[in-house]
């Protein structure tokens, strides 16, 4: 490991190692498939490195332990999968207005309800609309490779600290379980090396006492708090959009896909290009903030945007908002844990593409 700092890793373990190397001091989690390897990885590595690992009695408890640990200034993480993330929403809705940094990993599985343990992207709405009650957002990052799971987890800790806000890593069972090489690029950080935060609860020694809360009974104060958060979210929207564009030069149709779906889409789009179809791929990496300007800009040349998702179609609403009537928008989705093949998607794209071409010629 010393020489190349390159390892073959499972997705969930790459997240764990990234957390360790980001100076994560506390991890709290509760078992749920398909992300147990992450909890298990943390159980071993956090203990080895003398940090805090605790298996909580529920996801509810875990997210509230995250809240408590975060008030002390520690970098802290929890992870779960869809049903468990629903339980964590109570805490996330508190963590956001308390302006506490936290990294929350959702390795999505088929739903709704108990659903199944197969890869899915059915939690897009929940992730990008805040998820819990009240007027707030969370930063949502959607990795599409094990390397990106590693890189974006490190990025998530930085973003959480910088904006004092919860950051969600939205992966799925496929991302979590696959193995790929990972290069550890940045220098690892120990928890003790991290800069001190000015707002933490550590005991009121040689300073006035502090409080961190979300209860603001005066409506005017609560309104101002909401606007303050809103301004923060506006700033994040301007600065933290991440998006990859592939084969977009000269494209007339664009497939929009994230995470595992984007890998399937990449293979399908490549095949389209081989068949001389002018199709490109837009891959949002940050789902919130959504790369709406990238898509809006592309409406100048793109006649048709096709959102491809492992759900019945959730991100398509953001695509449609971004396109704002300036092009056609469609969706191809497979929910419930089904992972479609590139060949299947290729057939759908080419059908849509040919129809688009015929209509253009009319």
């Amino acid at each position, binding site marked *: 490991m010393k020489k190349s700092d390159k390892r073959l890793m499972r997705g969930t373990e790459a997240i764990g190692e990234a957390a360790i190397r980001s100076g994560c001091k506390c991890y709290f989690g509760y078992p749920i498939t398909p992300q147990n390897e992450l909890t298990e990885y943390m159980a071993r590595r956090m203990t080895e490195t003398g940090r805090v690992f605790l298996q909580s009695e529920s996801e*509810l*408890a875990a997210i509230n332990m995250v*809240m*408590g640990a975060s008030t*002390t200034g520690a970098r*802290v993480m929890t992870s779960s999968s869809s049903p468990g993330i629903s339980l964590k929403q109570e805490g996330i809705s508190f963590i956001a207005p308390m302006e506490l940094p936290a990294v929350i990993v959702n390795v999505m599985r088929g739903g709704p309800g108990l659903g199944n343990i197969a890869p899915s992207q059915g939690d897009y709405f929940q992730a990008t609309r805040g998820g819990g009650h009240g007027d707030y957002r969370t930063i949502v990052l959607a990795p599409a490779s094990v390397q990106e799971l590693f890189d974006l987890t490190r990025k998530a800790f930085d973003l959480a600290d910088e904006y004092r806000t919860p950051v969600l890593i939205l992966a799925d069972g496929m991302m979590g379980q696959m193995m790929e090489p990972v290069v550890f690029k940045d220098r690892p950080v120990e928890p003790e090396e991290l800069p001190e935060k000015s707002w933490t609860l550590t*005991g009121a020694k040689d300073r006035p006492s502090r409080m961190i809360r979300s209860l603001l009974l005066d409506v005017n104060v609560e309104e101002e708090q909401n606007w303050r958060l809103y301004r923060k979210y506006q700033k994040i929207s301007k600065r933290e959009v991440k998006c990859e564009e592939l084969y977009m030069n000269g494209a007339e149709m664009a497939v929009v896909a994230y995470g595992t779906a984007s890998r399937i889409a990449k293979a399908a789009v490549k095949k389209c290009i081989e068949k001389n179809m002018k199709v490109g791929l837009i891959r949002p990496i940050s789902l919130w903030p959504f790369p709406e300007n990238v898509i809006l800009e592309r409406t100048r040349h793109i006649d048709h945007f096709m959102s491809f998702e492992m759900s019945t179609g959730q991100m398509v609403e953001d695509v449609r908002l971004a396109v704002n009537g300036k092009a056609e928008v469609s969706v191809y989705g497979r929910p419930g844990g089904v992972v479609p093949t590139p060949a299947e998607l290729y057939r759908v794209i080419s059908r849509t593409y040919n129809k688009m071409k015929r209509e253009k010629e009319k």
Partner: protein
Amino acid sequence: MKKRRPARPPTMKEATYHYCPGCGHSVIHRLASEVIDELGIADRAIGVPPAGCAVLAYNYFDVDMTEAPHGRAVAVATGIKRSLPDSIVFSYQGDGDLAAIGTAELVHAANRGECITVIGVNNAVYGMTGGQMAPTSLLGMKTTTSPFGRDSKRDGYPIKVCELLASLEGAVYLERCAVNSVKSIRRTKKALREAFLTQMNGTGFSLVEVLSPCPTNWKLSPAASWKWIDDVMSKHFPIGIIKDTRKDKEKENNAG
């Protein structure tokens, strides 16, 4: 003879309580503050108030304080304590917090022997929301959601928090007291002191359950409320040390 008003403990902020006349919270706040000052732990104390009447406790305690969703205070406290083992962490919770919505968190924090101190206030009703039935409401007790009295067939029985936790090895100090007389108030202060000492010594989980008057929702005068604690409430919730296994646990800790 001129009566001297006792000085405000340094850990109490200069503020006017929002509590109803005759409410026990103000007394318990003061006792906790006095104990924190006497033990000299104000500069490493971190408090976690509940959802409920005492949610504004951070307006009165002059120590670092945060907030927890309803029932989750001990989970939040666990996060704080695990991250900062040298801090002195206390949660301040009502009976609904402890014995209804937060039972899982409470049981498991106690079972893990989290070195935190829980100040549990039992007034047998949901006070802030307007006097609904609590898990600790007595049988036959009329509340806004048990208008014909608590019926064990429908509502089950009043939960004894201390006794519920007593079987858990991690819970080493559990005491029930009251704040309805000078004597009981003194006793409560001593219990709080013991509970904080338990934490300072790293022995395990400590909880003090305080039977506390809620004249507004009991629809009694403060004086009648004090009497009701003696005549009715403490008959079901016996006053005293319910569990103290600190000596054994300390031996075990030293050996292990």
